[in-house]
């Protein structure tokens, strides 16, 4: 093998490799280390990223298992076990905030009120921990990608005094953000879910009006760093915020309306799925289906599939998964193949992000 491949072809091969192989290839030579770690290669590689997977934390009485599996359930799922590089004792509670371009944003709750945000790239085992000062009472959190500046940004709304702060991965620090219309909006509460789509982080927010509480969508443009509001379907604006969640299903912004507020979602429980077919077109909201959950549960979507995931509460079979994939049209349910009674999950694609940050 004495002949050399042209540089342009070598680059094409490298762009098709998995993050873990590229991590090993940083050992090839000094110039390869610099090349693979460069911002330009990392962002080019993002565009070649392989298909989405499902990142799951399955917690049982005695252990927690972190793993990756296929989004589309198959008779023999390919399950890869992950070892989180940060301390993850059973006493810690982890929740996914959002996973974007290979960077997973997790909230780690030790014991109230102590919590931290972890930005983790499971493919290359790098992470960053951001402590939340105990004095801050979090109202809402969001995580987004600013594609213009090639930057990941965390947004934090907290009390006292309705403050807003933004953490930019490129800047490596928190800074204050203006939210000038907050008073006019009469904003009271945020839903506990959020999603990132089309450059915006979205939350459901409850506003106080003269006719009583109304809900709407609040969104934050991560590039321009500005808030905006967006309409929910008319049928939902009077719903209690505790019964609403926001998610993304097959690339469309979607809202879930549950039969009750947690933890009361229960007997003969259901959840309506509403989808905004055309982004930011209020007329395009449509109810696409209903999920029945005999013992209650939690529903979320992924951007790459029209199926939703249903996490059943009180699932009785111990050797089965509490997490299922469901076609909202046919109601056909498939086990995702990860055992566990309490599973929290999010969509994930591998990348090299953070390789040159920590």
């Amino acid at each position: 093998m004495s002949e050399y491949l042209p540089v342009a072809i070598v680059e094409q091969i490298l762009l098709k490799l998995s993050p873990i192989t590229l991590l090993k290839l940083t050992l090839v030579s000094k110039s390869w280390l610099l090349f693979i770690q460069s911002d330009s290669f990392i962002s080019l590689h993002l565009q070649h990223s392989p298909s989405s997977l499902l990142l799951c934390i399955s917690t049982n009485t005695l252990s927690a298992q972190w793993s990756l599996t296929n989004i589309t359930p198959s008779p023999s799922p390919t399950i890869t076990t992950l070892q989180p590089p940060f301390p993850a004792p059973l006493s810690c509670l982890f929740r996914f905030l959002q996973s974007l371009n290979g960077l997973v944003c997790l909230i780690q709750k030790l014991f109230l009120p102590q919590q931290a945000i972890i930005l983790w790239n499971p493919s290359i085992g790098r992470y960053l921990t951001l402590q939340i000062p105990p004095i801050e009472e979090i109202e809402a959190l969001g995580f987004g990608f600013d594609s213009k500046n090639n930057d990941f940004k965390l947004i934090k709304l907290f009390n006292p005094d309705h403050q807003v702060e933004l953490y930019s991965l490129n800047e490596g620090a928190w800074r204050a953000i203006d939210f000038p219309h907050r008073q006019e909006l009469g904003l009271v509460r945020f839903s506990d879910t959020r999603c990132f789509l089309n450059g915006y982080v979205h939350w459901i927010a409850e506003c106080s009006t003269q006719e009583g509480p109304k809900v709407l969508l609040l969104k934050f443009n991560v590039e321009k760093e500005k808030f905006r509001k967006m309409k929910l379907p008319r049928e939902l604006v009077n719903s209690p915020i505790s019964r609403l969640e926001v998610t993304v299903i097959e690339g469309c912004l979607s809202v879930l309306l549950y039969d009750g507020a947690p933890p009361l979602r229960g007997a003969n429980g259901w959840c309506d799925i509403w989808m905004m077919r055309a982004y930011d077109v209020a007329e395009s909201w449509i109810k696409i289906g209903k999920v029945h959950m005999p013992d209650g549960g939690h529903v979320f979507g992924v951007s790459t599939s029209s199926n939703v995931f249903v996490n059943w509460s009180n699932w009785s079979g111990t050797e089965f998964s509490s997490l299922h994939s469901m076609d909202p049209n046919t109601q056909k349910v498939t086990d995702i193949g990860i055992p566990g009674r309490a599973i929290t999950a999010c969509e994930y694609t591998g990348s090299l992000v953070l390789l040159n940050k920590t």
Partner: protein
Amino acid sequence: MAEKASESSNSISLNTVDGKIFKVSPTIANQMQTIQSLIKAYDSSRVISLPHVNAFHLSKIIEYLEGKSATTVSAVKEFEAQFMKDLSLKQLKGLLIAVGYLKVNELLELMPKTVAKLIENKSVEFLRKFFGIVNDFTPSEEAKIREEIAWAFDGVDED
């Protein structure tokens, strides 16, 4: 019949580095950008010499360009998969150099994916040899990086 005769009279002769002459139709020749520009620059009746391409590589490229004109998408996919499967990693590398020289766009798109799949789990030493890269790390620099990413080396293939 008449069409066939005119096609053969239009055919282009390519001479490989190991002295073998290939006659190809203009349709096939035009899918190799380097040859396309050579035809434009010179009299196309002349034999075109390819000093960087051997007979094996040119025959594979012609085989691919003829085979991928199958009628259905799935037939093309099946043909491509079989075409790649028949080649060793060493042969793929040589062929990729020829493909890069002749600028066969479809193969330039397809082959890096195939090569990437095959080298996905190879050792660093194998990859240095494959890409012809000299290790310029000092032993202690290399040991330091290797220690940082030690977990990534579970289950690497034998060379």
